[in-house]
């Protein structure tokens, strides 16, 4: 580490940059010579350069000092030195937002932009537009209009580009220059034409009809400038996308016709536009891919690069379309431009067959050290994708990755490699030990805290369960001695897991822990003391609860509960069971339409979907006193698609109650619904105790109503129930245009689909990183076992999927992945039953003419075991 720093210092001291060690105050001092007469252009030029350099380095200038320097600079306008004047323009632009009263140069710039010196005119326009605001714009409008149609291309272009910048600020003024811009669009100069088109488009881009007209006009009349053509292609494809225009549209025809343009840039733009369109058919894609294929053998590196980069992207969506180019891509593998070679290889890795993997990997490793980090990440991503596609290739990949890990590289690159290795380990148990060994080696000299802690966590999780756990201890303890606080703390946690899992390692782990208790950092000491005390008890249950499987509560929920606890003085100890559980990250977080009230929480701990529901429900007076929200289901649709009313239901489970939330949308623009409730008729002894209506349901504005149900206290095994549901409401017809409702209304109702409550509504998923330990912890006091035959199920995968979705429990130890070509499998599931009872399920599955399944259930509560077995049966 220390060596590296030395090296850097040497490099920075090489002194190749004369501006390296500029002092702002010294430079500002020097700027005083701007006030001297006569002016010395050469010296002033040098000082302006320094000022601009400092500004570009992000140096902060206070308003007063900036203004002073700016006004001193204005004096330089008396010099007629061309270079100095142009440097002044640059300074004005750089300082426009930091100095006060920059309008002081308005007249001087106006004079330059209308003067005879052409080299001044364009830059003066650009500078003038930077210092002009909407009120001042009127004063220079006349000059801008003239400049747009000026004969000198640089003047016209400057005026057009500056106008484009000012559209954002003063749309209404710039809009008046459309005629001038039209005239400029027929210029013979390719840049002027391009800039004019840009301005015209931006003036119209919010008016789809106007854009369409403009496209029609220019696609018919044709343009001289290839830049303008590229722009037209972009506008056309954006319009196609927005209007979801079919590929029979004239816009698509236009883009396709550009594939035959004389200019390569236009051809590329058209090809790129086509391959990026959503829902392109193979036939539509073919001509675009074939021009890219042609470019692959172009003598111009830029074209080859563009082509292969685009093909690389296409390969993800349409690998078969790119296969046609495989031969051309093969030729690029040895391209002297390494970026091209990398892209070619990674593309081939995506489209090629398993047999070509080894050859391609060998090729890439011959030059991987020569390419930049950005491309190395591309390579790692390709490897990662490949590993998923061809799991058998993992040893080749692992080797390659470990070599890459040893090379120099930045954080993103290293993280990509580490993530890739970890995912290989998780997918392929046989690769675990080699993978861990590579990672151990890596953390020996790893400057990235995030990666070191991540790897230490993984070592703690996986290391103790390998055949030779002792070999990892040294690597972990080295971290305690050498690293920063965060890494030391992570190392202590990892060590504790070895002590908890392996009795023969426990004595030495205790000795090491003892040493960690003398650490200089609070967190490290606290962790060590805590683990030390837990480990010394030598109780499996304690180890499982406090070392292997940490807290599984929602962090924002815990924070709220603790806060609540401190508000009400009480003798009772804090009860962890009152804290809502964390919804495991594996449940997909879908974006909701309902949540509105939250988003004020700090970004880092984004509240989960359930935290949001918890808060919403808590704000409804009728639902206070229900306790913490235990589980919220995924939404169920209770109506067919495209009906008058759209209703979906979310089931919220509490300790003794359930709340059914009905999100309703009224799709009739001539009706206002009021007092909307969903009446529920239970099939079992569930009791509906309250309805919270949605007061108003106007056209297309979703609103929710709720039904509160008490769960049967006397029969804890009654976990399932079917409710028939009817939506009841008052209809008030209204004028579809104004939305004004009639005075009178009438009652009406609408029948919805049934809502089912099943066992999964009573169980919350909880991830136990070490299932074995948890299994021991719960113990066999209430263990029951039964065997079932699942006659209708054909594969193990299908059986696993069914059980998980039926019980709504969390698969642990990645047991939801059934290895290929196996005919038996063990699935382990963890969850918490309503009321806070830990519940674990182990299902041994065997495939033989259907699937037989032996289910073992353990829980801290006997009825729970019965309920689960009863519902499976």
């Amino acid at each position, binding site marked *: 580490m220390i060596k590296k720093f030395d090296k850097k210092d040497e490099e920075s001291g090489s002194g190749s940059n004369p501006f390296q060690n500029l002092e702002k105050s010294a430079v500002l001092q020097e700027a005083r010579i701007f006030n001297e*007469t006569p002016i010395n252009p050469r010296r002033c030029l040098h000082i302006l350069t320094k000022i601009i350099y400092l500004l570009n380095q992000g140096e902060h200038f206070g308003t007063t000092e900036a203004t002073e320097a700016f006004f001193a600079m204005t*004096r330089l306008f008396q010099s007629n030195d061309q270079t100095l004047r142009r440097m002044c323009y640059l300074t004005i632009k750089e300082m426009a937002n930091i100095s006060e009263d920059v*309008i*002081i140069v*308005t007249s*001087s710039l106006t*004079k330059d932009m209308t003067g005879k010196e052409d080299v001044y005119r364009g830059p003066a326009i650009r500078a003038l537009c930077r210092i002009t605001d909407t009120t*001042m714009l009127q004063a220079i409008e006349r000059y801008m209009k003239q400049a747009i149609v000026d004969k000198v291309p640089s003047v016209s272009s400057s005026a057009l580009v500056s106008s484009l910048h000012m559209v954002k600020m003063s749309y209404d003024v710039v809009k008046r220059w459309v005629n001038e811009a039209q005239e400029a669009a027929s210029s013979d100069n390719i840049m002027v034409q391009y800039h004019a088109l840009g301005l015209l488009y931006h003036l119209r881009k919010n008016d789809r009809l106007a854009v369409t007209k403009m496209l029609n006009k220019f696609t018919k009349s044709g343009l001289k400038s290839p830049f303008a053509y590229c722009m037209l292609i972009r506008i056309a494809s954006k319009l196609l996308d927005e209007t979801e225009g079919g590929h029979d549209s004239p816009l698509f025809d236009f883009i396709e016709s550009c594939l035959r343009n004389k200019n390569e840039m236009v051809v590329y733009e058209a090809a790129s536009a086509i391959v990026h369109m959503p829902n392109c058919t193979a036939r539509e894609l073919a001509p675009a891919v074939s021009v890219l294929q042609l470019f692959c053998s172009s003598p111009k590196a830029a074209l080859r690069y563009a082509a292969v980069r685009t093909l690389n992207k296409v390969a993800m969506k349409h690998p078969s379309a790119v296969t046609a180019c495989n031969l051309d891509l093969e030729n690029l593998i040895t391209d002297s431009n390494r970026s091209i070679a990398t892209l070619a290889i990674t593309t081939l890795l995506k489209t090629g067959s398993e047999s070509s993997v080894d050859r391609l990997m060998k090729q890439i490793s011959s030059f991987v050290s020569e390419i930049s980090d950005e491309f190395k990440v591309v390579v790692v991503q390709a490897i990662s994708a490949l590993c998923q596609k061809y799991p058998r290739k993992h040893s080749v990949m692992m080797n390659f990755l470990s070599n890459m890990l040893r090379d120099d590289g930045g954080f993103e690159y290293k993280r990509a490699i580490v993530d890739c290795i970890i995912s290989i380990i998780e997918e392929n148990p046989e690769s675990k030990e080699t993978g861990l060994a590579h990672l151990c080696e890596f953390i020996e000299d790893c400057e990235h805290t995030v990666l070191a802690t991540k790897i230490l966590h993984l070592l703690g999780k996986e290391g103790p369960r390998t055949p030779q756990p002792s070999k990892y201890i040294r690597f972990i303890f080295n971290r305690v001695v050498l690293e920063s606080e965060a890494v030391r703390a992570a190392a202590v946690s990892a060590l504790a897991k070895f002590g908890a899992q392996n009795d023969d390692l426990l004595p030495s782990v205790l000795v090491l822990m003892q040493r960690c208790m003398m650490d200089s950092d609070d967190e490290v000491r606290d962790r060590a003391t805590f683990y030390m005390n837990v480990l010394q008890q030598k109780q499996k249950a304690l180890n499982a609860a406090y070392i292997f499987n940490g807290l599984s509560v929602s962090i924002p929920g815990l924070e709220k509960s603790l806060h609540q606890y401190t508000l009400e003085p009480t003798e009772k100890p804090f009860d962890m069971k009152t804290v809502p559980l964390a919804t495991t990250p594996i449940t997909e977080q879908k974006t909701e339409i309902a949540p509105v009230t939250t988003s004020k929480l700090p970004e880092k701990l984004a509240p989960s979907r359930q935290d949001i529901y918890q808060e919403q429900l808590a704000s409804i007076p009728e639902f206070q006193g229900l306790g913490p929200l235990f589980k919220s289901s995924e939404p169920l649709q209770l109506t067919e698609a495209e009906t008058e009313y759209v209703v979906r239901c979310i089931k919220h489970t509490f300790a003794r109650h359930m709340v059914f939330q009905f999100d309703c949308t009224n799709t009739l623009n001539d009706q206002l619904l009021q007092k909307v409730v969903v009446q529920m008729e239970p099939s079992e002894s569930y009791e509906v105790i309250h309805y919270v209506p949605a007061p108003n349901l106007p056209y297309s504005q979703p609103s929710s109503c709720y039904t509160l149900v008490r769960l049967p206290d006397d029969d804890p095994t009654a976990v399932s129930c079917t409710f028939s549901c009817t939506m009841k409401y008052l209809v008030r017809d209204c004028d579809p245009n104004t939305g004004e409702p009639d005075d009178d209304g009438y009652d009406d109702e609408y029948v919805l689909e049934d809502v089912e409550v099943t066992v999964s509504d009573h169980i919350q998923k909880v991830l136990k990183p070490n299932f074995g330990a948890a299994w021991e912890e719960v113990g066999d006091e209430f263990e029951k076992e039964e065997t079932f035959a699942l006659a209708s199920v054909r594969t193990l995968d299908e059986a696993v999927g069914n059980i998980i979705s039926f019980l709504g429990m969390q698969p642990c130890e990645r047991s939801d992945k059934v290895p290929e070509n196996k005919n038996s499998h063990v699935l382990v599931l963890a969850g918490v039953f309503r009321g806070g009872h830990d519940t674990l399920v182990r299902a041994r599955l065997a495939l033989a003419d259907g699937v037989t399944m032996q289910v073992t259930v353990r829980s801290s509560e006997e009825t729970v075991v019965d309920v689960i077995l009863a519902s499976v049966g």
Partner: protein
Amino acid sequence: MGLLDKLSGWLGLRKKEVNVLCLGLDNSGKTTIINQLKPANHSNHLGPLSEEWKHVSQTQAQEIVPTIGFNIEKFKSSSLSFTVFDMSGQSRYRNLWEHYYKESHAIIFVIDSGDKLRMVVAKEELDTLLNHQDIRSRKIPVLFFANKMDLRDAMSSVKVSQMLCLENIRDKPWHICASNAIKGEGLQQGLDWLQEQIAQSTENNEHMNE
């Protein structure tokens, strides 16, 4: 700096460069005055006005618009090379004048003799100027143009100097000329006075420096 410039500098031939600040309320005619001095000056050096130049000077006269900020113009007289900062006179820009006080060697203050209503405003601005810390203690020459003397209801230069209380200025050389900037009348007379003052003050300075 070209070789010739250097040479003429050594030989004492090079004209002395002076910075002049042209101030006054908006619409008083500052820009018109400076523009008048400029082409006249060119014709001195480039010989009789070419056709092209006539055209330019005409369009310049037509195209005068209110100044925003300032403009720099240069012209030469028989012994001096002037760099004039023609400032804008609108009230919201007047506070920017002071940025240029320190380095100026002379001030031209222009008054619209026909604008009786705003004479008090002009006086106020003049007083502020004369009391400014960068001006107060300097013997900087101030030339007043009582401009637009051609207007029917224009006040005489005597009347203008009374209204501005110029007689109270004791520590600076000053002079007032009636002028018509459009025709160029009275301008040369004022400039001659200024030239003389600058020559004197530099002599004095040189004595003091010795």
